[in-house]
């Protein structure tokens, strides 16, 4: 990892916010994610987890979006604030 500050989205704590630095998902498969605004530069906050711990829901551009851990694993963020 280049920066100690940069972590995978799936490792973000609950309530913490981050700024997306890289989205490493295959372009074909990431179209819906990109369309919802999950792109480099956007602020994202981890809010909830499902009973099976996967997927988790993130607050981005004013809406709550559920993302699978598999995809959150391939999104990198720079931590902005800590969670509770």
């Amino acid at each position, binding site marked *: 990892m280049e920066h100690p500050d940069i972590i995978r989205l799936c490792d973000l704590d609950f309530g913490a916010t981050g700024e997306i630095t890289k989205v490493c998902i295959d372009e074909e498969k990431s179209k819906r994610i990109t369309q919802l605004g999950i792109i480099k530069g956007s602020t994202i906050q981890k809010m*909830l987890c499902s009973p099976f711990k996967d997927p988790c829901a993130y607050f981005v551009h004013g809406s709550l979006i*559920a993302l699978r851990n598999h*995809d959150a694993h391939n999104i990198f963020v720079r931590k902005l604030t800590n969670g509770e």
Partner: protein
Amino acid sequence: MNETIALVGNPNVGKSTVFNALTGLKQHTGNWTGKTVGKAAGTFMCNGKKLKLVDLPGAYSLKPQSFEEEVTRDFIYFGDYSKAILVADSTNLKRSLILILQVLEFTQSAVVCLNLSDEAAKKGIVTDIDELSLQLCSTVIPTSAKKKKNNGLDSLKSVIDSPCFAHSKRIDYGEKTENAINMLENFCKKHCPDMPPRFLALRLLENEETFLQRLGEIYPDSIEPLLREAELARCKIGIASDEISYIINNAVIARAEQIAKLCSKVPPNAHAFDRKLDYIFTSRLTGIPVMLIMLLFIFWLTVFGANYPSQLLADLFAKLISKVHNAFISVGINPTACSFVCDGILSTIGRIVSVMLPPMAIFFPLFTIWEDFGYLPRVAFNLDRLFQKAGVSGKQSLTMCMGLGCNACGITNCRIIDSQRERSIAVMTNGFIPCNGKFPTIIAIVTMFFAGAGANRFISSITQALALTAILITGVICTLACSKLLSETVYKGKSDSFALELPPYRAPQAGTVIVRSILDRTVFVLLRALCAAAPAGAVIWICANVSIGNASILTAVSQFLDPFASFFGLDGVILLGFILGFPANEIVLPIIIMAYTCNGTLVEFSDLDSLRILLCDNGWTVTTAICTIVFSLMHFPCATSCITVFKETKSLAQTLGAIFLPTAFGLCICAILAHIIPLIA
């Protein structure tokens, strides 16, 4: 020629509610992404003029990621309309603005409808209408389309009637991209004079396939030179089309953010209540239990509430039919014809109405309230892991929920699934979910054989609800198993990335809900069942009363099917019942009963105890009951569903798959149970 107005906005902002309120049509609405599938059109009066209104499927952006979004994009860019109503969500202005800004780059004839104002007010969110109006250079009308009075729709109507003009400040896409746009603008003006040149330049630079296809259809001579120029421009600035796409997307989002910051004040605890509910609905401890309890409750209320009305209707029909029977006889009508009408057609109709109508009239409104509230996406959220493991989309649970009401509706709703592969699997496995038409059969058999003779009505309704829940869970497990099978064999591939919006909770509109679900769904489904029931009853009567040799057709056919059927724990009559029940699942049990009783006597069918005696007299055992329930859950879909599968997939193979898969599973499980249960019991 009526002037056409387009209704466009994100999913879930209440476009369909606005549509309904303006046109008075009962468009089906619900609080989850993808509720409106396909365009809907209606008309409304505005200052004495008749205007046509088109409700487009919700889209997050005009760069489509699904078939539905393509429909919206194509209508906006290529459709015939004079004005657009841009419906925005007051509680989330930023996201709504992303789409609005995209539309405003194409057309200036638009007005902004800031919906859900009441929801925003409840959360303490304040929108500066004047500032927003300034930023978008457009009229902004705050509305709460859900409300009956003071909903802002009159203001909207008065604005629509006059020429609308909206023009937001140009978005700056950065030096390089702006250069490329400049290079292309004149060329665009020359070749496609009808399209705004800046807009066209941007789309050409983005190089999105389906858009270029449509463009080619309209300007077949210009498309080649345009594409060449665009490629040239991209080379000159040294940026590839996907990078340009990213730049454009980013710039629109940034501008939306800027405007939202200026115009919308959101207090920090605006969504606190929603988050509390989310915790209850999705936490490790309470998520799944709450889901099961809610399901049980809905089933229980349906079963318990329908009990008395069903009895009432059955008695009513019995009296009516016997009166008709007597009247016919007294008038001198041939007893055979009389029997044909009364025992054949009328009694089947009577049974359908008394058994089907009350549960549906309770279930559909309850389910619609559940939908309106916004709970269903949380179900998809909770269960997605299971669907991941099965190699399919989490949105499949939403289509399965729709299938609970009516399989054909569930199949149409598979359009919300973005990937073709996952959509096909969802379509083919929708038949594993028990639709409302299967409930009466299942409930009746469960009550007769498992709820206990003469049991307290309250206790037996709980047993019935538990049984329905258990059967639904079985259906879900089989759907997952079948989906896994398909994604390992015929539809190989890993799950696409899954991103689902969990919308804010909205208070369901109780009054409208009840009226709408009774009219839309209950009456519609009932009519369909009746249309299938009358001819089916006639056919059965004929088969039972017309003989070949020394046995009636019915006896001959059911005896022929018997050996095959009994391997699966059923009998010839039951199998015949399912086969003749192809038009509508609701008529299966009435057909079976009619076949057993077809000696001309009218059986008192209001009493389940005497029905059980009838069935046992005809060889039913506990094994038969269980196998019939299982086969009822998993057999070929009804005629309407099969037609819908074909319409949606345009593929004979998938239609055959949809027919074959549940039948195969059903027969296998029945065969296993038929041989195991007698050993245990």
